[in-house]
């Protein structure tokens, strides 16, 4: 299993964060991390404990991560008939807030009507527990591997503020597009990709196409 870990020196993150990531792990090592520890022994530094500032461990190998994700997706489809998703929950949470403030407005807006019209509860959907489960799951993985830390991940040439601004902007665009396409990278690309939905494959290529088309023009954000 040793072979399944990305070597820290090859990941983009560690290249930018310098030696910070090469500290040895303060936690007992899991079976697949022992090999990495041996490789990193040379840069040993005193162990600094703390819930949120522990040494981050390397990410798992992409193919391994993908395989686990694929098994999760399969189990979701196999047991429940539904796949994975999250953007639907964002839309339902917003609609619930609108319904609390202006129920009449919700009843008069066609898209919102379907989610929360009349006495319909917008939270009455499988995607809501998946959304909150994903938050807890992400946090748990971060805790276990020592990656929970208040920080901003960004390219080297922009300030934190710029990063926050474009992050917000990207979120607005992404969710607008996701609601239009009836699903995001999870609900369409992953789930529809695995079930061979023709429309989902089109959406998937459109996402990559859109991103590659403008990547050059926003390279200052990342490179």
């Amino acid at each position, binding site marked *: 299993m040793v072979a399944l870990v990305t070597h820290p020196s090859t990941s983009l993150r560690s290249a930018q964060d310098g030696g910070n990531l090469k500290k040895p792990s303060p936690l007992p090592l899991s079976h697949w991390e022992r090999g990495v520890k041996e490789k990193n022994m040379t840069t040993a530094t005193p162990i600094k404990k703390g819930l949120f500032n522990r040494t981050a461990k390397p990410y798992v190998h992409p*193919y391994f991560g993908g395989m686990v994700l694929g098994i999760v997706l399969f189990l979701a489809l*196999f047991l429940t008939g539904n796949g994975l998703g999250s953007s639907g929950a964002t839309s339902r949470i917003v609609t619930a807030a609108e319904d609390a403030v202006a129920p009449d407005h919700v009843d008069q807006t066609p898209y919102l009507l379907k989610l929360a019209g009349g006495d319909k509860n917008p939270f009455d959907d499988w*995607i809501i527990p998946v959304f909150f489960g994903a*938050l807890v799951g992400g946090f748990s993985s971060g805790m276990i591997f020592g990656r929970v830390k208040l920080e901003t991940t960004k390219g080297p040439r922009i300030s934190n503020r710029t990063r926050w601004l*474009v992050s917000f*902007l990207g979120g607005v665009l992404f969710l607008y597009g996701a*609601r239009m396409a*009836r699903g995001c990278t999870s609900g369409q690309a992953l789930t529809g990709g695995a079930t*061979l939905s023709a*429309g989902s494959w089109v959406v998937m290529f459109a996402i990559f196409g859109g991103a590659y088309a403008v990547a050059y023009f926003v390279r200052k954000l990342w490179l």
Partner: protein
Amino acid sequence: MQFPLPAFMSVSAENPWTYLVFGLVGFAFGFTLEMSGFGDSRKLAAQFYFTEMTVLKVMFTAIVTAMVLLFGAVSLGLLNFNLVWVNETYLASGILGGLIMGVGFIVGGFCPTTSLASASTGKIDGMFFMLGGFFGALLFGETEKYFDYWYTHAGYFGRLTLDQVFGLPVGVVVLLVVFMALFMFWGAEQLERIFGKKDLTKEPKLRLAGAGLLAVAAISVALIGTPSTNAKYDRLTFEREVDGQKVQYTADEMLAERKVQIHPGELLATMADDRLIASVIDVRSEADYNLFHIANSVNVPLTEIKTVVPSLLADQAANKVYVVVSNDEVAATEAWKILVAEAAPNVYILEGGVNNWIAVFGKSEEGIRLLTVSSADVLRYAFNSALGDRYECANPSPLAEWELDFTPKIQLQLKRDKSGGGCG
């Protein structure tokens, strides 16, 4: 046992543990994304500058792994694919929405679920992305009314899968997708070598074994093929409440014990019931249909019945009841077998067919004469002219005092989440 499990198919307040099931699915989802490095926007953005292709690798490994397992389970008869949610195809809104998402991806550095993994591990940019996401979803909800028609109709193809598009067996498509993914992984590694200056010799050799395993699994799926309609029919079970007890029946028992043949009176009552949507599917020839048919029925001759299955599966209304109709019951029973085997929900047969319908509601109507016909499933009435549904008994008033004596048999069965699946 057939998967997916009906009890798991939707969340409901009556079964609070269903929240736990979906919560666990979400937990595993968020955990794997964070573990793969998707909490860090740089790792995601690197995909689009060819320096690190983690996004593509994780995504396509996940897709092909899930796909091979899924269609493997279908091949082995464990999983009824028709009960699995397949995203419907909306070409126009899918393409435009996808392009917008792509721009959001490279500008914001996340996609919605990865922003959850990011925000939950304390990344401030991930939190801003989430916040922006709420605003974007709000904006869409408020502006959708300006292009509602385009949104719901442009390029709509319903439940459409790649095997239908290319006219290939599904197993072959699975195999082709696996080969395409393996080729993409090879290409991605070459790009990482060139643009990311990555030393490929340090990559684990185990990945080659994984690729081989995947290819073998896909070839097996292609060789086994998918179960026929008959095989699916034989595995069906129905649940009915009898004296407060839940009893399981096979499909043949349902037919033999006449639990799905509904009296014309029940069909009329169903059509008149505002809480139910009755969809009458007339499986007779077009000639018979033109002579006479029940009002609002749709003509789908038996030979073409399979073509309507995708649209029945795409229709998510929980209160929809399908009633198949032939002259007697022979053709309707055949149609019923196909529809239920393909997992269409709430399908019933009109007892005695059109002949019985006319016997109940149109005995004395002018222009309709009883014939003496002995062969089965033939129209037993002669009509003065082919008026279709303009005969009075084609559309009998539910308010008239019909003296009918029948046992209602329709029991609504919720086969899937009322909102459907997908990102809903």
